[in-house]
């Protein structure tokens, strides 16, 4: 997209940018909760580093979303003054941190996705987005490497760490499906040549995730259609504002100060 003049185009682009921005904001926020509480100091530093990258990406993307929208909303307006149902992040990223295995498995699933997505988006004709994606690609390569190393350590470490990692993967699996589904928003942007084709990401993600899980000696859960087990159904709807109950609490905490004094500058 060279300019934002066409109304419909503008809306899908804003929608797409909110999806990207919100994923990174919410996961960055969750990871920041570890700071000061991690298993070793090195990990306080590493998780904070990753959170900082994600929050930086979120800030740039939400800023761009506000620009494209053209209603004078800043990245802070978008982060602090929207309701849960207006957030477009995946349910995956809003889940509470759980134990370290849960945090790592989620980070690995998301980073694998983020890395593939940024790799494609850095070739966008929309240059501002391509620039943000190029930076995101480099950063997510590190996130992916870091989380992969821990997947292997925990999967292959002790009996306890293996059990916890298997549990984490089982718990998280139902949140991964919707990450790989693209709808009319992405299709429209592809049709307009704003972003490249995203259709290979799902299979690439499955291949990459399976390879690491296998190496980590973790059993790959079945997708719902295969398992038939109650409670394991894949979640959906996040991209349209349908969330778990956790998001409201996360936002209540995140937004409290900004919303208590809406006229203040900080």
């Amino acid at each position, binding site marked *: 997209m060279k300019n934002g003049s066409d109304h419909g185009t503008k809306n899908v682009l804003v929608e797409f940018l909110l999806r990207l921005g919100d994923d990174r*904001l919410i996961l960055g*926020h969750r990871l*920041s*909760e570890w*700071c*000061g*509480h*991690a*298993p*070793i*100091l*090195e*990990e*306080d*530093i590493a998780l*904070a*580093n990753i*959170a*900082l990258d994600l*929050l*930086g990406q*979120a*800030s740039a993307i*939400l800023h761009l979303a506000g620009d494209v929208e053209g209603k004078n909303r800043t*990245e*802070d307006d978008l*982060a*602090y003054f929207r309701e849960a149902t207006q957030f477009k992040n995946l349910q995956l990223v809003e889940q509470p941190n759980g*134990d*370290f295995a849960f945090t790592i498995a989620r980070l690995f699933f998301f980073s694998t996705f983020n890395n593939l997505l940024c790799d494609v988006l850095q070739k966008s004709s929309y240059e501002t987005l391509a620039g943000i994606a190029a930076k995101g690609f480099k950063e997510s390569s590190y996130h992916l490497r870091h989380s992969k190393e821990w997947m*292997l*350590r*925990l999967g*292959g*470490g*002790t009996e*306890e*760490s293996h059990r*916890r990692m298997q549990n984490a993967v089982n718990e998280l699996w139902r949140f991964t499906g919707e990450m790989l589904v693209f709808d009319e928003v992405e299709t429209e942007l592809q049709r307009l040549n704003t972003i490249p084709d995203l259709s290979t990401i799902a299979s690439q993600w499955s291949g990459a995730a399976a390879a690491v899980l296998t190496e980590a000696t973790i059993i790959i859960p079945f997708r719902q259609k295969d398992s038939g087990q109650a409670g394991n159904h894949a979640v959906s709807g996040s991209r349209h504002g349908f969330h778990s109950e956790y998001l409201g609490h996360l936002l209540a*905490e*995140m937004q*409290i*100060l*900004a919303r208590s*004094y809406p*006229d*203040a*500058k*900080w």
Partner: protein
Amino acid sequence: MNTSDETTLLERFKSRISAGEKIEPKDWMPERYRKQLIRMISQHAHSEVVGMLPEGNWITRAPSLRRKISLLAKVQDEAGHGMYLYSAAETLGVDRRELIEQLLSGQAKYSHIFNYPTLNWADIGVIGWFVDGAAIVNQTMLAKCSYGPYSRANLRICKEENFHKRQGYEIVATMAAGTTEQREMVQDAVNRWWWPSLMMFGPSDNESPNSAELLRWKVKLHSNDELRQRFVDLTVPQAQAVNITLPDSELRYDKKTQHWNFGKINWEEFWNVVKGNGPCNRERMAARQKADNDGAWVREAAVAYTMKQRMNR
């Protein structure tokens, strides 16, 4: 080693100290020097790590993305300082785990300042301004101390702390120029943090058990009172610049000495907090113990995995 050898070594050590040379890990040093340094460096490291908690308390509630990012980066830097300092202590023949266990058992101390709560967002600004400001005054001196690894660690830390202090003061200045509520938050935070910040330099030198020895060995180059005075002299004009009142009715500029005179410090409060009875001592220790307990299986897994990798090679 016989006594005369020891005496010769001690004399050489003393003359190196007085010549301003740095003592390096492999150099001979008196046992007492080594012990004092381990105590000081590990207390400093523990302070950085426990110090992550009061500020970490506001990461999830920071009022803008920019503030959230800079606060998280700051707390991350503190973890980094903890790492350099534990490494500096390790050059003296202890290991990090041993030191951490001393912290967790309550045997080792950390700066009393981190046992106060962060109650409003302005606390984040005021901590950067006062607590990092006081730390810089102290660490600028320690960057010149006689033990090489500790001196170099402090040099690096000071660079980052200067940045933190500027960031903190900027939060304060922004809020002080903001709404009535924001000004009230800043004044409230200043009222709570001012006196505990002055206590950070430790008791007066005549009541500080370690001072004389540390000064003689050039681990410290200035007395606690000198450092405290320097901090007050630096900070008073900064408070005036943003129209914030420091909570001391006796604060007066003395033209003759060119120093700011200040009121009496409540040392009873200080010792009480040091002994474990501050507002947040229990919470801080509980948070560190919980992180350590919850992380035990992760550390065990990392060790087990490395061992397996080695065996497979």
